């Protein structure tokens, strides 16, 4: 089938205005939140209903046309890039289908924006706990695909822990239910496999998530340290004390400067080597006792001072600086490479020292802002992507940083996914047999490898892989058309 014929057929399903094929219209879909990659889809199609989404996938399955599902495109690993294949935009599917406050469950379409679900649940005293920094824009469907995290996952868990059921259309066009909101379901945890499969196992049509009661009381603290080491020691001491903070975030001097010289200035001490943003929540009784204990532990670890937010305005301002830190780094340079790695918590001081050395050696500026309580690092490098020499230095530094994380027993992504960007690291953390088994799992869900081709697992690990469907491949290669 030619691209024009496919465009016409897709148009007959969703309406011609919801299929885009002109280069100028496709330009905005060439990138996602990760700079440095540009991949243009052959077509972009935007179903407006669940039935349309199913019909689109069924048509593509019938014609053996590869496709990439996409939410808001805020992902940071290149996972939503479509290289010469069809892009299925799910951002018209924005209905909150059901909200059941008694069971603390919500059913949403994949295009519902993360923060808007919490807003809708607010009047019931509930919220949706996973809170990626992009929550004002990112969609629940995208969160499910990436198994997204966020600062408050330290206490409340990541997306996986909050998804109860998904109805999905598999890449072969079959509609299937994973999990159940109405009691336990036996059998394989296909829901668990679907969450975090980066769009390779199908397209979610609706998602049932758990809602979390809003805490009755919240305290937000800012602890100020003269060394990253001291901040890391405080982190370990707090966790070991049996106190589970709702969030425990670290920002280094580079990040503090970026935030404080931006419109998101939160009043962080600009001469600190690191700050910890610590949130405690729960029942009111006893909470201030925990606050006192955390303050004492920070001081014992060497904090110059610990400030407890005295008003909701101050609290929101402290968080705003953290959540918009990536945006604030935009003032430093045109491009920002946001990295994601996880190390055992006790290795934080070692790894932070390694990162500083690597940055110096390559002449790049690393701004660290990350989930210290989970050991989930985000070393970020602002750079000018139009300078090839600088670009190469940044990439070389990032590779060494990732290797340093792997060397201490860490992993290459805690919440952003592998996508395109991290394919090369997969053989460093998984054996060839493990990668091959992942390919076989993918084939169980998607025998024709149509959904998000070329992502997550390196092509060479799939022994039976018949070739990467790239821009040069004819549309629908392998189909009977």
């Amino acid at each position: 089938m030619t691209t024009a014929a496919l465009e016409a057929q897709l148009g007959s399903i969703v309406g011609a205005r919801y299929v885009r094929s002109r280069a100028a219209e496709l330009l905005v879909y060439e990138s996602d939140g990760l700079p440095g990659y540009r991949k243009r889809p052959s077509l972009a199609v935007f179903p407006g209903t669940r039935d349309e989404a199913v019909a689109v996938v069924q048509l593509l399955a019938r014609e053996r046309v590869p496709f990439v599902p996409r939410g808001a495109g805020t992902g940071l690993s290149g996972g939503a890039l479509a290289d010469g294949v069809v892009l299925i935009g799910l951002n018209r599917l924005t209905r909150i289908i059901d909200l059941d406050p008694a069971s603390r469950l919500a059913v949403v379409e994949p295009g519902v924006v993360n923060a808007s679900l919490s807003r809708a649940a607010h009047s019931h005293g509930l919220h949706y706990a996973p809170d990626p920094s992009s929550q004002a824009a990112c969609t629940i469907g995208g969160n499910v695909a990436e198994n997204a995290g966020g600062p408050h996952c330290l206490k409340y868990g990541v997306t996986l822990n909050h998804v109860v059921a998904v109805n999905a259309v598999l890449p072969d066009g079959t509609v299937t239910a994973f999990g159940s909101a109405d009691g336990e379901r036996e059998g394989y945890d296909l829901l668990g496999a679907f969450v975090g499969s980066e769009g390779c196992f199908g397209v979610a049509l609706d998602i049932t998530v758990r809602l979390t009661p809003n805490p009755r009381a919240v305290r937000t603290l800012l602890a100020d340290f003269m060394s990253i080491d001291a901040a890391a020691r405080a982190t370990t001491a707090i966790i070991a004390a049996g106190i589970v903070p709702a969030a425990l975030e670290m920002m280094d001097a580079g990040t503090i400067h970026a935030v404080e010289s931006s419109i998101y200035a939160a009043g962080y001490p600009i001469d600190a080597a690191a700050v910890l943003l610590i949130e405690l929540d729960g029942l009111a009784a006893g909470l201030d006792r925990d606050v006192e204990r955390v303050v004492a532990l920070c001081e014992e670890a060497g904090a110059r001072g610990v400030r407890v937010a005295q008003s909701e305005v101050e609290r929101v301002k402290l968080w705003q600086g953290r959540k918009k830190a990536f945006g604030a780094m935009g003032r430093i340079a045109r491009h920002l490479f946001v990295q994601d790695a996880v190390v055992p918590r006790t290795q934080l001081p070692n790894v932070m020292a390694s990162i500083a050395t690597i940055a110096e050696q390559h002449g790049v500026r690393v701004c660290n802002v990350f989930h210290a309580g989970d050991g989930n690092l985000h070393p970020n490098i602002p750079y000018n992507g139009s300078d090839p020499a600088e670009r190469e230095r940044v990439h070389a530094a990032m590779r060494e940083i990732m290797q340093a994380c792997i060397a201490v027993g860490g992993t290459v992504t805690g919440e952003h996914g592998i996508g395109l960007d991290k394919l090369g690291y997969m053989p460093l953390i998984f054996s060839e047999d493990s990668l091959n088994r992942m390919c076989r799992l993918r084939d169980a869900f998607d025998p024709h490898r149509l959904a998000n081709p070329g992502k997550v697992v390196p092509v060479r690990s799939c022994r039976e892989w018949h070739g990467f469907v790239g821009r040069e491949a004819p549309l629908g290669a392998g189909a009977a058309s």
Partner: protein
Amino acid sequence: MTQVAGPTGAAGAVIDASSTSQVQDAVRDAAARGEALRIVGAGSWLHAGRPVRADASLCVRSLAGVVEYVPGDLTITAWAGTTLAELDRVTAEHGQWLALDPFGARDGTLGATVATGSFGPLAASFGTPRDVVLGLQCVTGDGEIVNGGARVVKHVAGYDLVRLMTGAWGTLGVLTMLTLRLRARAPVDATYAVNVSAPLGAWIAAYRAASVSPLATELLHAATASALGLGTDMTALVRVSGNDEAVAAQEKALAELGAVRSVSGETWAALAGGDPPRPTVAMRLSHRPARIADVWVQATTIARDVPDAFLHATLDRGIARLVLPRVGDADLVTRLRLATECARVCEVLPAALWHQVAPSAASDPLSQRVRTAFDPEWRLNPGILGEA
């Protein structure tokens, strides 16, 4: 590796493996002989009557011990045959604990707990094994060593083999090593028995509105409460933790729900190990959490007039669990027909009844393809999921 005959419930030899490579050899040898294997940990599930068709048993009980434990990381890596009791002991030395409390004795193995996806009252706040396991190693049905997850608390690299293996009853791979998330002990950890007044729906509504944030809340049928020495009324067993101020405030809030008294934390172990010996049936009924009162009514109807029935419910997850001793097959089938409104998961059934009352949940085409991807010849625990 030794081969000895033993009372494992499966016909044929028992192969003991004490290393991953011995597990791999055993699986490959079985493949060469065209044989199917029953995978055994402590052997405590064998009385469940699950219809496994195997030629030999592969026992991983000797594949035991802690591989790596850095307390500051709050993670532990251990071999699959390690008992829960051993993990309790090792972690307690550092003021930490594994928040998994499946029903049964603590001499059950970690591997079996994860393979069966077993959980207990703590699932209300810490989730089930799928929420606790961070990484694993296993041997697939065609004898390859495969790893999933990692030894860190957050990990999304690659497809999630950890979730897939957890609760798969060994049919996708023989679990050999697991990494788990641990918790640090809070300064105070207290358990209270709270009197539950009728009507149950109103009591649950009051409970949900109360200023409490329990680690676990288990509703106990009057007879079950009595068996645990907690009086003769319907009782809620509630576990709270935190600093002493937080715990004291919650005790006060619980007192507004009914007469409350502090009881030993050992009560939880008594509940977990309190099933009548060799029960005819153990099963869980469930629905969305708001329907727990309806689920409870169904469970009490099924258990009516059965002496020594054991009945309790995890309120916050909407799950009731009942254990019935000495019920005839025909009577049991009649009783199970009463569970019309809720989902049903069987833990123990008479062998002859599995196919009749617990249809396979893994016979859909996708599940079959997944199984074949990991165990092409369906060599591992064939039949255990009720499949033909």
